[in-house]
């Protein structure tokens, strides 16, 4: 299983729809400070439900909706397209699309998940992806500042990392 494309619509600093192809192997994302590199990482983490909104640097999920350039839309959406030709994810299709949308409402927001265009839940997505070795705990994601956090941990916190993994 691998990522083929990340499509980001109206999420954080992306005010239009942007499709980012991801190739095999080793990809580097680079550019100036404040250009949006970490926001791409946030989009992946957001779509796969790998983290809380605190880790996405948003006070509340609706802060993730793009708010540049005047009129602000009421939703943000990210789609990740996976190559599933090895069928590690237990579905028939060779391609798996995971979409997450949040829509702002009067009282707060709605959060929707889709797997290949069918509405689903986050736990369903985590369940299916666990067969491909992808778990919701996010050990495969290292956010900006995590290295420093690990360095500054107390010995007890460090041991608890092992507890959590076992």
């Amino acid at each position: 299983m691998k990522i083929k494309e990340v499509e980001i619509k109206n999420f954080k600093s992306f005010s239009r729809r942007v499709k980012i192809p991801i190739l095999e192997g080793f990809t580097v994302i680079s550019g100036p400070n404040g250009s949006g590199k970490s926001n791409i990482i946030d989009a992946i983490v957001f779509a796969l439900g790998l983290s809380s909104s605190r880790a996405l640097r948003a006070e509340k999920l609706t802060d993730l909706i793009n708010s540049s350039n005047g009129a602000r839309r009421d939703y943000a959406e990210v789609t990740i397209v996976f190559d599933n030709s090895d069928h590690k994810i237990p579905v028939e299709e060779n391609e798996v699309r995971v979409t997450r949308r949040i829509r702002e409402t009067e009282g707060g927001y709605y959060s929707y998940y889709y797997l290949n265009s069918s509405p689903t839940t986050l736990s369903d997505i985590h369940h299916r992806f666990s067969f491909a070795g992808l778990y919701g705990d996010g050990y495969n994601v290292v956010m900006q500042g995590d290295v420093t956090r690990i360095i500054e941990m107390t010995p007890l916190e460090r041991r608890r990392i092992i507890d959590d993994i076992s």
Partner: protein
Amino acid sequence: KREVFFETFNAINRNFMEIFAQLSDGTGELVLENPENPFEGGMHIHVKPHGKPIQRLESMSGGEKSLVAISLIFAIQRFKPAPFYVFDEIDMFLDGVNVDRVARLIKDNSKDAQFIVVSLRKPMIEKADSIIGVTMSNNTTIVTGVKLN
């Protein structure tokens, strides 16, 4: 519960020793404060840089600490492999030589898994198979290109 802990701890420790030796000129290991009752103590990291005496993590240089943390992260990931990895600027404290070593390790491992790495450092960028350029224009992020190296 204790058995499961030790199974995990020993496997991650083995990985840590291997990876740290690869990334630095020294040796390192994870050490339990209380090996008899692990849950009553913390976990220390003892590092012996090439030729130097053993030191605790806290007394090492900024770059050395960073290599230790990266080695621990990679050791955990080797214990629990995933189909793709996402790293956001993990090379910040490292000098050029150490960025190069981490980049080589990522490159070698990228045959078995997909790596998406945010970095501003030349020794990392030049080893990538493809580069996604990101800039801000008119207040919005544009992805300027996906080059294949």
